[in-house]
């Protein structure tokens, strides 16, 4: 225990240094920043350093901030001035930033013996933040609860209903969280090693956001025990759309897309062979555009985005671009980013992480 405390102290010292030295100058267009910044995403620079960028709807970078390591998922809320970027697993930091730039960014960390899994969601009123976390000594998935009004103090946690919780979203009812428990056990001692592939089992859990009670758990069938559901988005009808990543033989064609809702069973979406091959057994991001009644799913490994009708699951169109992954709704379509540097229509000399946050 003592060693972990020391590690944490050392980590915080390191973070302090990076915060005090690391704020990068605003890019040109700072004036536009206050009005136009609507997206955020993590990135890697050519020198290997990591950061957060705020971008306009054209894909112009308006602001950058250095991060101590690679950032991943983002969370925002209409009633909070804060937006959050979470460390990619097994990182234990998250950065709260004010898109209007009125407040200094705040960096906070998980409790000892926990690390983030890269995603989180606000409560409807914006006063609490829920984050997917790993109790790495037991391997149990946890949902950490942070008080937004008190400097992101960790005030509690509840079980995620499985192992390896990844994306977590608040449902439109404002009372229920939905968590994709990817089923894969990891430990910071072996940062990116999957420790339980022989016994993994992914599920989707619905959790009461107030009590932490598990309302429903939708287990994936044993046939697809190596399929890890990771990313989620909910449409206006309460259907949660999900995209998975398959840990088995690349020759298999796992059913990567499914939908589920409270009270209704999980249902896989059949795809033609060409689109299945195009995902390379890996979906990195899911996004909904309720204006158009569509859901988009992306694969950076396959360089494919598939857009489905969210009413019936039918394919509307697909889009190919190497390394594409980040997705967010924009008017009647989606803005997309790629690990090769493209954001919207602009090519940057950066590698964008897998997610775009709408702020």
């Amino acid at each position, binding site marked *: 225990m003592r060693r972990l405390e020391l590690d944490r102290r050392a980590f915080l010292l390191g973070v302090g240094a990076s915060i005090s030295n690391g704020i990068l100058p605003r890019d040109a267009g700072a004036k536009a920043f206050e009005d136009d910044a609507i997206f955020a995403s993590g990135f890697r620079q050519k020198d290997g350093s990591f950061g957060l960028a705020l971008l306009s709807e054209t894909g112009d970078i308006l602001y950058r901030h250095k991060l101590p390591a690679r950032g991943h998922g983002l969370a925002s809320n209409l009633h909070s001035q804060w937006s959050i970027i979470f460390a990619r697993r097994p990182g234990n930091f998250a950065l709260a930033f004010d898109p209007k730039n009125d407040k200094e960014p705040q960096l906070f960390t998980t409790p000892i013996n926990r690390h983030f899994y890269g995603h989180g969601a606000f409560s409807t009123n914006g006063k609490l933040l829920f984050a997917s976390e790993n109790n790495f000594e037991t391997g149990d998935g946890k949902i950490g609860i942070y008080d937004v009004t008190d400097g992101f103090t960790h005030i509690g946690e509840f079980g995620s209903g499985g192992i390896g919780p990844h994306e977590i979203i608040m449902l439109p009812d404002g009372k229920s969280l939905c968590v994709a428990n990817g089923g894969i056990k990891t430990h910071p001692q072996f940062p990116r090693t999957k*420790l339980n592939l022989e016994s993994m089992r992914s599920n989707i859990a619905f959790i009461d956001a107030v009590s932490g009670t598990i309302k429903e758990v939708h287990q994936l069938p044993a046939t697809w025990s190596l399929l890890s559901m990771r990313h989620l988005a909910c449409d206006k009808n309460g259907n949660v759309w999900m995209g998975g990543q398959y840990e088995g033989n690349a020759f298999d064609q796992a059913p990567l897309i499914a939908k589920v809702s409270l009270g209704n069973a999980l249902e896989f979406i059949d795809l033609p062979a060409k689109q299945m091959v195009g995902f390379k057994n890996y979906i990195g991001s899911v996004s909904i555009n309720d204006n158009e009644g569509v859901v988009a799913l992306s694969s950076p490994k396959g360089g494919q985005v598939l857009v489905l009708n969210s009413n019936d699951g039918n394919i509307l169109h697909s889009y190919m671009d190497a390394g594409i992954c980040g997705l967010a709704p924009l008017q009647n379509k989606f803005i997309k980013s790629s690990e090769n540097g493209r954001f919207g229509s602009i090519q940057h000399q950066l590698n964008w992480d897998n997610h775009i946050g709408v702020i």
Partner: protein
Amino acid sequence: MRILAAVIFCILSVFPSAAQVDGATKRVLSNVLINYIQPRYADLQIKSQALKGDIAQLCEIPSDANFKSARLSFLDFANSWAQIEWFRVGPIMSKNRVERILFYPDRKSTGLKQVQRALANEDASVTSFGSLTQKSVAVQGLGALEFILFGTGFEALKSHDGAFRCKFGHAVSQNLTDISNTLVAGWENDGIAAKFWLNPNDENPLYRNDNEALNVLIGTMVHGLEALSDVRIGAFLKDEAKLDRPKSALMWRSENTLAMIISGLSGLEKLFTESGVEQLLPQENSALGESVRFELNQAINTANSIDKAVLELIQSQDDRQKLAYLKLAIGFAISRIDNDFSQQLGLSAGFSFGDGD
């Protein structure tokens, strides 16, 4: 799986056979199949048969000599496996075969506890191949066999006192042989795996074009090197000597930890060299292949210079520094392959070799 069968049917009907491959990238893929995958699995099969035979002999006639032969065969098999264990394509990725050969890391010593319990209780279900394969993957492979041959109580194997222990070991060796046979058969020239491997096209779930194929190949090298550094060395070598965890090292009992790392590095060097992938470099940067090989050989030479038991190795500050340098050397090799070599091949400069989230 029905979908897979349908896809395979379609693909078998449209894919050319191995003899018909052409193009520079396809030649590289063919080289990998012929010069790396098939010979490495063939070697594994030979070593597994020797292991099975030697343990059978030990069980029949327990003696010091037969015991030593069984141990040597174990080490031979383990080091043969290490030469191809990071190649994660094809039949090795089905039915938990990776974990059934070697379940590691095992943070909670789950496998060790099960093996010890089976030995203490003389659990008959671990002494037949059929019933062993129904048990936890952690008792089916090299981890279990290492404890049987090198762990507490191994002396019993030199006499009939160790009959149960020996039968357990024999069942494990049968399992390893069975898996090795499956891997060899799975990569035969006209099999599904070879056809997928040799033929990038739009219907191939493994890769649709040359770039994706090269990504798989280069990604295998990068992931393998990362795992050797982060998991195999990182498991026991910590930032400070007092934090080292030598008994977390793979095969510390058999003193085969460094040999496994050396075999792993050597296997990846073979994959790189035998593939001929450097022939795809632009003429003006053709020397980059030699540069990658230099970095890999630096790592191999460093590992060879400290090929000792881990328990001994970490006692010496000098050796600890060499281990730290080994990690550094592996890092140089990763950087050379991931940054320089792959970009010269025209591959993506994104996160494509990293695992996802």
